[in-house]
């Protein structure tokens, strides 16, 4: 589904991604771990098409199509979803209104009519129940005054509403309490199917107990320095990153 080939990206002439290779097939879950500042969020932004980052070399390919000239909204229409590490506040715009706009814009891109109000309501009810979100919450301004955990849960609510093909979860677990972590993980697992894929970015093994990855990659200094199965995450938890950093420089 997703192929990343020798991807280099920089911001303000500073190279952050330095040759990333990654292939994600439908049905798979990939975990990306790595120290702070190693480029994980940058990688997700580049996949989502954030223009701030300049791709200097390499490609991001979705279903055989090079995404180079594809705008962020078109990428979203093609099924890429990013759960932000730091979700943005939009004052005065309710969660419901925002989701309605997002869903209908996606439908418009596919040449469909707006979703009928009753279907929309049903979908909202279904997904908010799944994620145990209070209905009152949905009429609040998007992310404004939300607690850290609420923001993350709201990201997954949006994911559930949009049913993306490729979901990238950037540290969705940070800020979630123990119950919330379980609820949110369940939500993610419900989305999983043989047709879609998930990339989870995390610092903690704990999330991976709920969302079990097929592969774990370690990003360091803008490069994937090690890949393995789910046991790699355990190893990292135990040993930290230093041994890999050394390995990478050797």
């Amino acid at each position, binding site marked *: 589904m997703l192929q990343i080939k020798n991807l280099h990206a920089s911001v303000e002439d500073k190279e952050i991604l330095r040759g990333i290779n990654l292939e994600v097939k439908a049905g798979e879950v990939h975990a990306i771990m790595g120290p702070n500042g190693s480029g994980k969020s940058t990688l997700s932004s580049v996949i989502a098409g954030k223009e701030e980052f300049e791709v200097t070399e390499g490609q991001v390919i979705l279903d055989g199509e090079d995404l180079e000239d594809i705008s962020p*909204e078109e990428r979203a229409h093609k099924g890429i979803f990013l759960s932000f590490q730091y979700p*943005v506040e939009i004052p*005065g715009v309710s969660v*419901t209104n925002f989701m*309605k706009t997002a869903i209908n814009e*996606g439908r418009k891109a596919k040449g469909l009519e707006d979703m009928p109000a009753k279907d929309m309501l049903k979908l909202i009810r279904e997904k908010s129940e799944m994620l145990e979100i209070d209905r009152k919450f949905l009429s609040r301004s998007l992310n404004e005054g939300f607690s850290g955990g609420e923001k993350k849960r709201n990201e997954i609510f949006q994911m559930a509403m949009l049913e993306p093909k490729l979901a990238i979860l950037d540290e969705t677990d940070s800020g979630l309490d123990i119950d919330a972590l379980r609820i949110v993980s369940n939500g993610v697992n419900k989305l999983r199917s043989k047709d879609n894929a998930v990339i989870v970015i995390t610092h903690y093994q704990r999330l991976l107990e709920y969302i079990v990855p097929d592969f774990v990659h370690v990003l360091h200094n803008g490069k994937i320095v090690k890949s393995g199965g789910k046991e790699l995450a355990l190893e990292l938890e135990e040993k930290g990153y230093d041994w890999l950093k050394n390995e990478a420089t050797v």
Partner: protein
Amino acid sequence: MAYTEEELKKELETKEYEYGFYTDIESETFPVGLSEEIVIAISKKKEEPEWMTLWRLEAFKIWKEMEEPEWANVHYVKPDFQAISYYSAPKKADPNKTLDDVDPELLEMYKKLGISVDEQKKLQNVAVDIVMDSVSVATTFKKTLGEKGIIFCSISEAIKEHPELVKKYLGSVVPKTDNFYAALNSAVFSDGSFCYIPKGVRCPMELSTYFRINQAGTGQFERTLVIADEGSYVSYLEGCTAPSRDENQLHAAVVELVSLDDAEIKYSTVQNWFPGNKEGKGGVYNFVTKRALCEKNAKVSWTQVETGSAVTWKYPSCILKGDNSIGEFYSIAVTNNYQQADTGTKMIHLGKNTRSTIISKGISAGKSHNSYRGLVQVSSRAENARNFSQCDSLLMGNECGAHTFPYIEVKNKSAMIEHEATTSKIGEDQIFYCNQRGIDTEKAIALIVNGFSKEVLNKLPMEFAVEAQKLLEISLEGSVG
């Protein structure tokens, strides 16, 4: 909430425009220039009684002695008052003109606003094939209003039919001496609306000066007088969302509201005069004086959405004369390209326990300048006066400006005045967040702007709110750099 927002929106989109009715305003053209003779001629043309002619002449005398104000934060080439025709007729439909002759850009905008083909034709002085049945609608409404003793007519008609009311209240809130443009208006006002709600009557419908469409050429020197007698209520809509292109560059209207004991007036405006082109050429100068007088326990709310005009100078105000009276001002002012707006309000607290609320939302894009200017004044005998002001500015891009000038004058120690101000920019991160959810940048900005303006949009009557929302979107189109 019985409806979802979506259902509501849908329903409103399909709903026919159902404003009460509009007042017909008649006019005809005069040569350019201003003199006593012209003032007399206007009065004569309108078959006014002598007292009215004298009233106008006095105003003209006052105006001649006055200087154009310079204190507003706007810059423009001053109008040549001798080059203006002070009496202009609405253009007759041109039988040879079709919609194909109309600027396609304008038609596109009409389409986006959901304006019907007939209305488009009317706006462009294209003959309408089907006669809208507004006349019969108007008659029905007029009957309903008549039964309740409500008077709603043109000010010219009121001068003839209800001189006692006009004599008593015209100029009672905005005196001829008030300011340069008010004096000018008093001398030469072409027409406008008059409304009187009798004691204890709740006006059963929204009254509106225009039936969505503004008749061309009538807006130049409008005069509006609304009187809500004791314990009555009225909601009044002014303006239209359809873009008004007008050859008259200078617009100087006066609106006076009188809210007697226990009465309430809601006055909503959507102003969309031609703002000039992208290079800042052309466009209307809109210099308006709007003021309300509140007697005991009375209430007045001004709500305005200002998107048009090249230069706007406008401060709807409340004189809170009676004890316990309430004044409110809710405003959204959008400026784009080279537009300049200097708007705000004055809340004059004279009575005891008077309260006022000011919510101002300024949105600036392009190279425009948007200023809020507000005065809160508490007199020495106004015990326990309260004011809350909130002025928020939203900037788009780096070339526009937002300015806030709050003036507070308090002469009574018991007063409580709160002022909050924020300035924000639409962030790249907000846009990217929306983009990531499949919302393109144009739509994202509309969403963010609507969110920003929500508190004020919510104050508008529902039909108006939906249109105003669309108007905001259109006004800011192409402003993303």
